[in-house]
């Protein structure tokens, strides 16, 4: 027998069991297995169906407002005094973040499977709002599971979901955060297996979710490739994106994985600092484990108990990360770094003043890291950062902090 050939593409994964190297997989209760398998089967059929792809393209253009602009951030480029900085403007999507790219795909898949009732988990509420939006658009029932603490912190998004017709379930079990919201959504799904479809919001969970969500988000990277060729006639030198579960980063990076000359940087939430124990940096501060249906890097104690993540950004406040990121981390294809709460707040203010764009706290982490290196890069280099969400949702959390830091006029 011939030896198994080394994969010549980094974009071929996962294997048929949903593994990216040792990461990924299907670690779920037997009750969920038939469901997961039916989603996988339906997604494989849909992916190959031109009509399904045409529908996605239609809603991208006419509802979400794609392609989102690739914007040359001229003032920030001058401010840093180094390489050229471009923003991929996914905060201009309908509902204000990249989350809708994935939700639209999964909602269309659910409709194709004849499932009219949707479940979702949400942290900051962006995925919940996107899901409630698609459900309103398609006349579907929507139930969103959200940590009780986040329900309090993110009231505007809770109001938006309710206005859109979704039922929001505050989750008090466990620690009442995003991971518990996901536990609760999975528990609920088990009991409603016949009728409900679970729209997971990031590139995590059991196979096929990590691959499926990545595919739906890869529109970001595909557009960047085309737009950059049009604007500069070449590929960028560096791509930067923030990482919680990692869906916006995976969407940006994936089309570039085989373009090995392009440097890829993921920015985790370092919270109060990587040494503080209060962060959400699964790769930089965790180790491999199994949670929520997949093997990946997790924040956990010596006994394998999952520990709490901390970040000022509710969207990054998750103790795990998508399994494909864990794989790319160990391969070394993507470099993963951290930005602290305070660094993100400074970048938040800077972006607003320099470009007139209020970024979400999540991409503010990415910008904070951009600020650490772009000034040292030659002026003919190009950096693209994914501006994956807008910051209106964060005003309540940010204003008192910026005031205290003396960053307001």
């Amino acid at each position, binding site marked *: 027998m011939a030896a198994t050939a080394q994969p010549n593409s980094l974009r071929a994964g996962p294997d048929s*069991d949903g593994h990216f190297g040792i990461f990924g*997989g*299907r*670690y*779920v*209760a*037997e*009750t969920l*297995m*038939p*469901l997961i398998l039916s989603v996988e089967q339906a997604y494989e059929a849909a992916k190959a169906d031109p009509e399904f792809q045409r529908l996605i393209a239609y809603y991208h253009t006419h509802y979400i407002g794609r392609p989102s602009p690739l914007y040359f951030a001229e003032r920030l480029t001058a401010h840093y005094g180094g390489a050229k900085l471009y923003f991929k403007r996914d905060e201009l999507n309908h509902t204000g973040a990249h989350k809708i790219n994935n939700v639209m795909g999964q909602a269309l898949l659910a409709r194709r499977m004849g499932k009219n009732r949707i479940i979702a988990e949400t942290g900051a509420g962006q995925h919940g709002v996107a899901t409630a939006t698609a459900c309103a658009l398609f006349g579907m029932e929507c139930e969103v599971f959200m940590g009780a603490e986040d329900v309090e912190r993110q009231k505007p998004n809770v109001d938006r979901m309710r206005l859109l017709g979704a039922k929001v379930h505050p989750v008090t*079990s*466990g620690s009442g955060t995003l*991971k*518990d919201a996901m*536990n609760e959504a*999975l*528990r609920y799904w*088990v*009991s409603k*297996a*016949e009728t409900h479809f679970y729209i997971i919001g990031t590139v995590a969970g059991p196979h096929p979710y990590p691959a499926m969500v990545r595919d739906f988000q890869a529109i970001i990277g595909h557009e960047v490739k085309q737009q950059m060729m049009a604007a500069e006639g070449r590929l960028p030198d560096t791509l930067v994106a923030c990482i919680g579960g990692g869906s916006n980063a995976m969407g940006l990076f994936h089309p570039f994985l085989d373009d090995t000359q392009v440097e890829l940087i993921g920015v985790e939430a370092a919270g109060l600092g990587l040494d503080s124990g209060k962060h959400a940096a699964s790769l930089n501060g965790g180790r*491999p*484990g*199994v*949670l*929520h*249906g997949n*093997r990946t890097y*997790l924040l*956990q104690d*010596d*006994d*394998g*108990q*999952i520990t709490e993540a901390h970040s000022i950004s509710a969207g990054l406040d998750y103790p795990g990360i998508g399994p494909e990121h864990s794989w790319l981390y160990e391969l070394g294809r993507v470099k993963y770094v951290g930005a602290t709460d305070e660094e993100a707040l400074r970048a938040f203010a800077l972006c607003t003043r320099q470009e007139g764009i209020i970024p979400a706290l999540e991409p503010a982490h990415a910008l904070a890291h951009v600020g650490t290196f772009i000034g040292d890069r030659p002026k003919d280099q190009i950096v693209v950062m994914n501006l994956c969400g807008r910051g209106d949702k964060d005003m309540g959390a940010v204003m008192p902090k910026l005031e205290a830091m003396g960053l307001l006029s």
Partner: protein
Amino acid sequence: MPKAGVARIDARFQALRAEGRAALGIFISAGDPDVDTSLAILKGLPAAGADMIEFGMPFTDPMADGPAVQESSQRALKAGMTLAGVLEMVRAFRAGDQHTPLILMGYYNPIYSYGVDRFVDDALASGVDGLIVVDLPPEEDRELCLPALSKGLGFIRLATPTTDDVRLPAVLKNTAGFVYYVSITGITGTAEVPTDMVTRAVERLKRHTDLPICVGFGITTPDQAAGVARCSDGAIVGTAVVKTIKASLDAHGRATDATVSDTLGFVRALADGVRGARR
């Protein structure tokens, strides 16, 4: 020399078959509400009428469990329970009981973190007979199921109402000890067990396997336990037991004088139900 591992489970079901009755399996979370109380309950279970013990390995994120088992797991973690601590309790139990099968039940991450080979060896050495690891379906058998089976540890799989005839052979393939039929499509302890449906389900499973079929996830009273015992090889009760533990605690969640006696008293009532239900 008494049997150990999957052989101890087989021997118990063989003996019960000779008696003409089904097994009563009792679930508790190791270390709930504290190590000493939990160990006293564990040691008292066989005399109270438990034929088999499902011993929960506490986990922060019990995805397939309802509120009652989640809370019992949290109480145990708060009291400092670890996987090594669970095995230590099993060792203490085994010193006084060589015949009652003990199955560890929980989730994969603490085991993965402990190290699979080391865990299988230590579990066997402590007197563990089988494993139920909720988030390891047959698709992930290479992780733990096959290493455990190769060393003589039972691996008990959950079959559910959603496990159809096409999928059943895969679910049963590497199962040893017994099959745990989950009587409701949901999480533990959230609905009553529908006995007529269970009868049909057990008959369906019997067409695919010679292993004993035990039924759980929804048995709360001695009558229900008796009903399930009449149509299966065993009734497993968990939620109602950990609720009894919870009800006995003081306002600060600490054990009281009633905790051990109330819990074992409830188990005795369940055992009377099961033993009265001869087939």
